[in-house]
Structures are given as structure tokens and as C-alpha cells.
């Protein structure tokens, strides 16, 4: 929708209050010109002039959060989490191809409010449970002295006592054990032991106890130890807690910030964490599910079949080595001078090609910097045929910096851009349409500059200094409203560095991590919690682990969140 909205958002009056926050008038815009309601308090598109200057007092100053949504107290496993969980629990992923895709409600697929189960999705779950239970009935470990082909009732109860702890990620209640024991007995009347075991496994996989993470709380609203264990493991691994984490939960070891951070560090060392963090960063920056094959043939001309994989590898390595490593930082990830290219991508980027595989290369002297100029990210926010000023401009403002650009007004849809005049560049035409003097300037003052900085990149991140007529691209941009300052930047590389050094991007990363961890969008009541997490971070310099340590150690991580 965002892509379509922006295509239509060529002209936007940028007026009115959106999501509880108002946009400021563009600098120099006369009142009543359609540029917006005028300067507002706290109204940087996050931390701008209204918030009082260069140094915002709090990381969340000016940040407009989403509409109020209560915590549900439960979260269905996403498709991604389901697959990872059954792999850990059962050692198989048989049949999980039947699961339907999740429909993300916001940046992240794990937003609980969007994880309803349609009938089609329920059918997919049923098919997956049937296939998984069939495979697992032959392999799931049985209690000592118990054979899966001749399970006595006592053996079944012993199995349930231990296995349900892992499957449900908490100790089963006696009612649950009794229910599955009774099911086994019932099934044994007409089936052999293994088939009855299969039926029990299938029932558990279809149960809400397995499929949903119920976040139990104590009288003070604090999550119980097992809910904390799941919150931690699904944040870091995208999968179920291991035995050590469940033991820590049982022993009360997760009640303290120190205990949680200790477990976080342990989990973070596991390779599973690296892949999960790529998923988090990919969803934040929209780099997941980008298919080059959707791009126009003219854009793909001259590229090879490995480009898609090499772009994905580049992004993954940027996350793992530049942000998630001990020496990594948000700045290195977003705007570092090193990236990772295979032969095909090196050719696309005009960089030295490795012999094989993905090699680290320096971007010194290159028009690129880190993930913000990675081909996969640019492709995600471009059209099929080429770059798009509003698409990439909106991406920078709303996704990278958590600033708010309202949807275009009704009349924006009835307007097409003017014809390009002889000798006029794309930028000049677009500026004539949306810039100073137009009714659209209110929003496009914010959208256009980052969009212009990227105009020298095509729809898959290929760079050129000149357009098809041989005219040099003008990628200079006057980037307003970042940490209360306006800065002139010559190109996307400089813009990326400017952004990566800002307090705002650090606060936005913290917000995204919290939304990913909590499975919901943040709202006004979360501002203090966001400040608590973000205030301890150094703009650009903290690694992903340090960000997560601040989050996991915070009080908000141990609480369910508002339920009304």
C-alpha cells in the first residue's frame, strides 16, 4: 500500500493531524498555502525546530507513535516462528510449506494484532500438523524404557510431562496432561500405539497452547518467567526457548534485568540469532521478499542469475558483521564503508570482483555506504522501471527515521505530474510539481530531498553519474529536520552518513526493536519506556547486542503492556 500511496502522493497538502501528531509547515511556506497547519510544538517530523534545537532532551521527542492498541496477552506464532519452532521441537519441518503467509500489519510479521487465523490459514495449519505429526511419531524421543510401538499409559504420561514442557514452552497444567492422556487412550481403541501417538502430537500442534504464546502476568503486571523466556527466545532466535532458558525461567532467573541480559548474551552467540537478526533488520528496512524478477527487463539487462542471491547475501552480511558482531555498530551497518559482494554484485556496483563467494570490499571512494545504499534496499523502495523520488524519500523519513508523513489528501489522486519541459531534468520537473510554490510543498519538502539524493541509483541499485541524456544527476539535497538541524548533503552516501550519526535513527532503531520484541506497535503510553531504552545508547556507535541489552534489561521488557 505504501508504494501505491506514494505513487499517488505526488501532491500532498500535508495538512491535519495524523496518528496523533501534526506536521510542521515547510520552511518558508506561507500560512494558508496548503503547506500545512504551521509549526507545531514537538513537531519535527521528529525532533525539529519545535522541539527546541539541536539536542533533543529525550530520544522520543517529536516521535509520533501509532494508534493505541492494547496488548492482547497472546501472540500466534508467525509462519517463520512456527517453522523454526517445529524444527527445534521435532527435528523436522515436514508439511510446513502448507502454512499460509502472514499478512503483516506494520513493519513486522509478528504484530499480534495482524495474526488472526482465517479459515484458509487454519486449513494450512491442519495440513502442517498432520504431516509433522506423521514424521515426528517415528522420531520423537520416548522416555527411557518406553517404546513408541507399545506405549503404556504410564509411558504416555511420562512422555507428556516432559515433552509438553517444551512444546508449550511452560509446564503443562494437570488438565492439559489429562486431556492428551485421554486422547491417547481414546485413539488406542481403534489405532496402534504409534498412530495414537501421532494423533496426540497432531492435537498438540493444533492446540492454542502450542500455536500461541500466552503472556501470563503476575498481580503487578510483570510477565511470568516462562513468558519472559519465550519473549526472549523469539526475539533473539525466532524460535522456542531451549532447556537452559526454560530452567532459568523455572528458577526465577529471568526476573532480574541482569538475569535476562545474561541469557540474552548466551542466546546471541548462537548462529540462530544471527539469522533472526537478519530477519529483524530486513523487515525494518523492507528488504525481505524483494524479488528482482519483478523488475523491468530493461533494468535487469546485463545481470546474471546469481544477482538476487548475492544481494540477499550482501544484506545478511551487513547485518551480521557490521551490526550484530562484537565490533559492529548501527553506523557501520547503515552507512559503513565496507560491504560484501559476490562476482555478479561486484560487477553491478563497479567494485573489484572476488574469485568466488562473498568478499568484504571497501566502499572508500564509492557512491555507496552500508545498508542504506545496498541494492536490495534500494530495489525494495524503487519501482519496477527505475528510481522513485517519493518512494525512497518516504522510506528514509518513515522507516529509517520513524518520522511521520501523512497519507496524501484526496485531491492528490486527481493530479498527474506536468509534462517535462525541453531541457528540464527529472528533478526540475518534479520540483516544479511538488516543490516551492506548489500546493504539495508541505510534505514534499521532507520527502523530496532524500529522494533526490538517490536519483543516481536505478531500480536495482546500479549507480550512474549521468542520466540517459548524458546530463549529470543532481543528487544534492537540503535535508531538513534531523536532530533539529538542516544539513546540505551532496549525495546518498553523505546522506547515509548523516542519518547514521543522528540521535533520531538510534531512537528509531530502538523503537523498531521494541515493536519487534513486543509484537505490537508502540503508542503514547510507551514513550517513557522508549526513552529508557534509547537514552542509554550512543548515536550510531552501539552494536545490535548493546541495543538488545538495553531493551531486554529494561522494565518494559518484563511487562505485558497496556491491556485497555
Amino acid at each position, binding site marked *: *500500500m505504501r508504494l501505491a500511496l506514494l505513487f499517488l502522493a505526488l501532491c500532498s497538502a500535508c495538512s491535519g493531524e495524523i496518528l496523533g501528531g501534526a506536521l510542521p509547515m515547510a520552511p518558508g511556506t506561507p500560512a494558508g498555502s496548503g503547506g500545512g497547519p504551521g509549526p507545531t510544538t514537538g513537531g519535527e517530523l521528529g525532533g525539529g525546530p519545535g522541539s527546541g534545537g539541536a539536542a533533543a532532551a529525550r530520544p522520543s521527542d517529536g516521535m509520533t507513535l501509532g494508534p493505541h492498541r492494547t496488548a492482547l496477552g497472546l501472540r500466534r506464532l508467525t509462519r517463520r516462528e512456527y517453522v523454526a519452532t517445529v524444527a527445534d521441537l521435532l527435528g523436522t519441518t515436514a508439511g510446513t510449506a502448507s502454512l499460509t*503467509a502472514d499478512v503483516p*500489519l506494520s513493519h513486522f510479521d509478528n504484530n499480534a494484532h495482524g495474526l*488472526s487465523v482465517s479459515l484458509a490459514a487454519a486449513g494450512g495449519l491442519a495440513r502442517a500438523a*498432520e504431516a509433522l505429526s506423521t514424521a515426528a511419531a517415528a522420531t520423537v524421543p520416548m522416555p527411557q524404557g518406553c517404546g513408541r510401538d507399545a506405549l503404556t499409559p504410564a509411558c504416555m504420561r511420562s512422555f507428556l510431562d516432559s515433552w509438553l514442557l517444551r512444546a508449550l514452552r511452560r509446564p503443562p497444567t494437570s488438565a492439559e496432561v489429562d486431556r492428551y492422556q485421554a486422547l491417547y487412550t481414546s*485413539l488406542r481403541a481403534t489405532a496402534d500405539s504409534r498412530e495414537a501417538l501421532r494423533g496426540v502430537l497432531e492435537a498438540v500442534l493444533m492446540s492454542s497452547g502450542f500455536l500461541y504464546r500466552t503472556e501470563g502476568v503476575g498481580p503487578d503486571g510483570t510477565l511470568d518467567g516462562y513468558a519472559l523466556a519465550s519473549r526472549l527466545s523469539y526475539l533473539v532466535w525466532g524460535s522456542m526457548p531451549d532447556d537452559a532458558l526454560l530452567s532459568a525461567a523455572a528458577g526465577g532467573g529471568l526476573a532480574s534485568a541482569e538475569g535476562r541480559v545474561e541469557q540474552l548474551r548466551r542466546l546471541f552467540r548462537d548462529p540462530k540469532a544471527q539469522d533472526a537478526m537478519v530477519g529483524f533488520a530486513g523487515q525494518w528496512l523492507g528488504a525481505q521478499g524483494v524479488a528482482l524478477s*519483478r523488475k523491468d527487463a530493461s533494468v535487469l539487462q546485463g545481470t546474471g542469475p546469481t544477482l538476487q542471491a548475492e544481494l540477499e547475501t550482501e544484506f545478511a552480511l551487513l547485518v551480521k558483521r557490521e551490526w550484530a558482531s562484537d565490533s559492529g555498530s548501527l553506523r557501520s551497518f547503515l552507512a559503513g564503508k565496507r560491504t560484501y559482494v559476490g562476482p555478479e554484485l561486484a560487477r553491478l556496483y563497479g567494485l573489484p570482483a572476488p574469485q568466488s563467494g562473498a568478499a568484504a570490499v571497501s566502499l572508500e571512494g564509492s557512491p555507496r555506504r552500508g545498508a542504506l545504499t545496498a541494492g536490495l534496499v534500494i530495489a525494495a523502495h524503487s519501482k519496477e522501471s527505475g528510481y522513485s523520488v517519493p518512494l525512497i524519500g518516504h522510506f528514509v523519513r518513515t522507516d529509517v527515521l520513524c518520522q511521520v508523513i501523512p497519507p496524501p489528501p484526496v485531491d492528490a489522486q*486527481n493530479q498527474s*505530474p506536468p509534462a517535462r519541459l525541453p531541457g528540464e531534468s527529472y528533478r526540475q520537473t518534479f520540483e516544479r510539481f511538488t516543490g516551492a510554490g506548489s500546493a504539495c510543498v508541505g510534505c514534499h519538502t521532507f520527502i523530496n530531498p532524500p529522494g533526490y539524493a538517490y536519483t543516481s541509483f536505478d531500480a536495482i541499485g546500479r549507480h550512474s553519474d549521468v542520466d540517459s541524456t548524458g546530463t549529470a544527476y543532481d543528487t544534492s539535497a537540503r535535508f531538513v529536520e534531523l536532530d533539529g538541524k538542516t544539513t546540505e548533503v551532496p549525495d546518498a552516501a553523505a546522506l547515509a552518513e548523516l542519518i547514521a550519526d543522528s540521535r533520531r535513527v538510534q531512537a528509531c532503531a530502538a523503537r523498531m526493536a521494541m515493536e519487534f520484541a513486543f509484537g505490537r506497535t508502540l503508542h503514547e503510553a510507551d514513550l517513557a519506556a522508549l526513552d529508557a531504552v534509547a537514552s542509554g545508547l550512543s548515536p550510531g556507535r552501539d552494536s545490535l547486542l548493546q541495543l538488545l541489552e538495553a531493551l531486554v534489561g529494561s522494565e518494559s521488557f518484563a511487562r505485558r503492556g497496556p491491556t485497555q
Partner: protein
Amino acid sequence: MNVPLRLRRRDLFKSAAALALLAPILRSTEARAQGVPIKRFVTLCHPNGNDYGSVGGPRGGATGFNFGTYYQALERHRADTIALTGMRLGGIPWGGEAADDVGHGSGGWACLTARSSQNTGSATGPSVDQFIARKLFEQRQAPTANAPVFRVGPMAGTRWQSHYEAAAVPVPHITTPEQAFRTLFGNLAGAGANGNQAAAQAIARRRSVLDAAWADCKGGLSVLPAEGRAQLDEYCARIRDLESALQAPAAGPTCAPPALGTLATIDPNNPANYAAITEYFFKCIEAAFVCDVTRVASFTFGTPAVRFNMPWLNLPTFDFGSGITGSDQHTYSHGELPAQLARFVGWYASRFAELLDRLKAVQADGSRLLDSTLVYWTGEIGDTYPTGASGALHDLACHTMFVFGSMGGLLKTGKLHAFARNPFAGYQSSLAKSEAVRHHGLLVSLIQAMGVTGVNQFGDPNGGSGVLQQLY
């Protein structure tokens, strides 16, 4: 080529898996045994506008109409067609006084639900396909409430789509042939001979499994906040749906799922593959109806507002000159280029004409599926080509829709109903808008024609109640 399974339905119950899949068939057999005629429903959708003003839409007299340049591929189906122009969608996601009459979001959410998003970012009620499937299931006139949605082409956004099971519950799309085969026919291939007793036992076991899952689900409700309770209760209801579809086996006709072949690994994102995937999905719809795996199916090209590329048209990249370039339908729509737009819409029309060919093919028992099927084709917005203005009018008041099939003569086909004079031929736009007919009544007519009882209003109550009388 189809896979000639030629299995008797009672032979298909080798495992509980087969039972799960074939349960719908069993219910339908029961329905037939009670003398309830089978009725089927298909919705077809395409992105962006579908008429483009006076240029290419249906025109002429009520019975002597022609399809215009955009829809001429449908000419061979004229006798089975009800063409409707001047239809009006509603919805208000944008705010402002003109909000209910413009916009991709408005039309995309409204074209099948007849509701606005109420600024929620989702449709606020079920789409007509899901509604009919659910109602027929509840009336015990259909084997399942499942109504698959096939999609060819990209999505513009994850929530901006047209098919919803309920408010804020979008229907996951089937996007690959492999997924379609697995979802609809996956367990048939492994089926073999088995007796009724074994099948009945397998059903009983499966019911026990789902009972246990349902009991677990209900047991978890009490500890949750209200909104969480509602979401979990929704899942409990879906478990009951699965269980309700289990029935005792009975004999039935043969069915032949379409073979996957090389399509099993085809890239659904590559536009060069769109035609092949579309053809396969149409085969699936035909086979699913013959096999009675479902009674309701939907097909959509992309989703609202998407940039649908058709590289085989060999159209040049259109250059607005302001960073707005592309060779897709959306970009061309903004470019006021009716001849080129005719090729986009014409391609959709050609594919849908092929689906109608399939539904009109004579089956083994001498029947035609279209005789018991209603097909509803809608776009998301109306005319996007106001002559002399920009090419971006996203008006929902001049919409062209089609219904195919008469459901046994109940609906009068071979007709064009032009409800509003064309504002782009000099007629005042506001008057045309006042003449336009909201599509709520059309949807009520379709719902009733499908045998759903007790429904005289659908979607937003502001759309009115009752049927669209002109259809009869």
C-alpha cells in the same frame, strides 16, 4: 494435461489426511442427497480502473450492446453476460468530503465488501465471496466455508487487498501452482482403495484430535484480556469449522486435478510466467468445482493500485518526465493513453474469457459448470480517464462490472445496464454521480441467487438494502 485420477470418492480415504481434504466432498454429497442444487460462485478482480471513460467500455442498447474495444475478447460470451456501467463503489479511507468517491484504497476495500475501511487500514467486513461461502456452509448447502483466492501478479501492499474473511482478516492468497495443487488436491494422489469402516474410524480419530485442540483453545480464553480473548476465540471457531467438515464417505463422480509438471517450480514474480500461472489457476478452479473441493473461488490479477507489468505487450517505458516512469498499467493509466490501456484491460478480458470457456465446457455428465455458477468481475476503481484533464481521476462513480451466468435463468443475461450517462462525453459529472447505482444491491442479488437466505442487505447500511431489480 490433467491427471486422470478417476477415483471414486469413497476410494480416496486412505488416511486422515485424505479425509481432511475430502471432507468437503462428503458434505456436498450429503447436500446433493437432500436435493439441494449445487451453486458455485467466482469473483474476478483486476487492479486499477477498468473503463477509462468513453473510450473503451460497453455501449449500445440494453440487448444490442457491444463490449467496446477494451472488452471485445468477451464477445463470444455475450449471451451469458450482464454488463453494468455507471456502478458506484463507496468507502471513506481518505477523509474529506469527496472521500467516498475516489481512491484505490476505497475501491479496493469496497469492490467486494461494499464497505469502507473506516480508516482502519483494512476492510471492515467480509468480501462477498467469503460471505457466500460461509453462509452456504452454515446453511449446510456447501461442503466447506473455504473459498480460495488465487492471485497472479504482485501486491501493492500487504493489507491493501480486496478479499476478507471478516473485518481485518484478509484471506491469504494462493500464488504458485504448487501451492494451489497442494492446497486443493494435495492428498488425492496418494489415495487408494479402502473400506468405509476404515474411513469412518479415521474420521472419528480426526474428530477426537480436533476436539482436544478445541478444548485446549477454549480453556485458554479465560486468562486473556478482552481483545486477546476475541482473537483466540476466532481460532477456536476455525477448529470447529475444520471439524464440522468431517462427514461419512459416499460415492461421487470422478475428478481430475491439473498436473503440475514444470509449473511446480515456476517463478510467480516473473511477469513472463503470468500467463502460464493464470491458465493453471483457471484449470484448478474448474477441477475444484468438478471435484467439489469448494463451491466458491476467487481470482485476482495483483491487488489494488499495483503496477501490473505486461512485458509481452512490448510497450515502451512511459515517461511523465517527473520521475514517474514505467511500462505498467498503473503508470499508463495516469498517462491518458487509451489505446495502450486497451491492451492492458484487453489482456485481462482475454484471460477471463478463457476461464468462461472452461466453465462452459461440457463435463462428463453432460452439464456445464457455468449453468450452476455465477461469475462477478470487478475492478477496484472506475473511470481513470477524464478527457482533457489529468489521467489520474480515481472516481468510483463510473464503474463497469460484469456478471456472467444466469443461475438457471434467474438473472437475465445478454444485457447491458447503463445506469449513469457518461460524464466524459460532456455530461455533468455531479449528475452522473447521482445517477450511478451503488453496487450493494448487485451484491445482494448475487448473494440471494446463490441460495443464501435471510440476506437483504450487504456491506455498509448506507448503501441501502434490497436487490438490483434490473437484473431479473
